[in-house]
């Protein structure tokens, strides 16, 4: 059986161990660690709720824009003012017969019937 034959007693060992005194944290370290405090923020659940609310809001806004779109489109697509002497094609009847738009009398630049 292995036996120890040290001349260093437990008391001597404790004294040797006690000679080590750890440093205290420096002010720099304390400041750095203190600055690690987390910024206030919401919990993950709150983030999910916020994301869901934002999605609903976005969908609602998109719906409103879609409702308003026809009037905007009509404004955008309104035929430009006819210049003198011009007759737009869409004013001309395309076909005759059932379902055809009511025939309109086409006038000349002078305001006289063309036919």
């Amino acid at each position, binding site marked *: 059986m292995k036996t*120890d034959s*040290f*001349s*260093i007693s*437990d008391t*001597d*060992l404790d*004294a*040797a*161990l006690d*000679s*080590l005194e*750890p*440093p*205290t*944290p*420096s002010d720099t*370290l*304390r400041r*750095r*660690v*203190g600055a*690690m*405090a*987390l*910024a*206030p*923020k919401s*919990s993950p659940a709150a983030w999910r709720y916020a994301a869901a609310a934002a999605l609903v809001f976005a969908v609602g806004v998109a719906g409103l824009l879609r409702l308003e779109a026809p009037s905007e489109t009509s404004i955008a697509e309104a035929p430009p003012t006819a210049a003198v002497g011009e007759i737009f094609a869409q004013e001309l009847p395309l076909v005759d017969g059932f379902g055809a738009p009511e025939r309109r009398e086409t006038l000349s630049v002078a305001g006289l019937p063309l036919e």
Partner: protein
Amino acid sequence: MAETPDDISDDVLVARAARGDAAAWRALADRHLSAVVSFSWYRLGDRIEAEDVAQETMLRFSRKAPNWEPDGPKVRTWLYRVAGNLCIDRQRARRPESPIEDVEETAVVDIQPHLDGNLDARRVVHKALTDLPHRQQVMLILVYYLGHTVRDAADMLDISEHAAESLLARARRAMRAALEPNREDLLGARS
């Protein structure tokens, strides 16, 4: 009666710190930073490195706070584990040829043949300590220097209390063996 940080458990402080309560975070830092620095310093024997390890440990703790589980390890235990791993990384970087696991029970202490006063005596003691096998070193630091009970230290190392006592006894024996050649100088430095 007003509530003081000392009255508040670590878990409550961590929860508050995770919500952005700076005072709670400072209370946690005041409570644990010094111990982490000491633990790291005993492990590494270098103040600058010990502070680096402590800073990194606290940074990781701050990031962990939002996901802290109150039923998990105690804050101090978690901090020691993280700091311990960081210390191992640094020790391995110093001694890449001798991984920590390989030096278990085979610590060789290179002690200066001649000592010159208390400073060198402390260096010899610290070198003997840092050259101890990893788990012996941690056990000695936790119990002897940081004042934890053997049971607490056993919990921290996730070993039985009996194994912890055995580890502590081996650590002390190894320290005596390491310091034996310099006994006269060590005793002379104290007187």
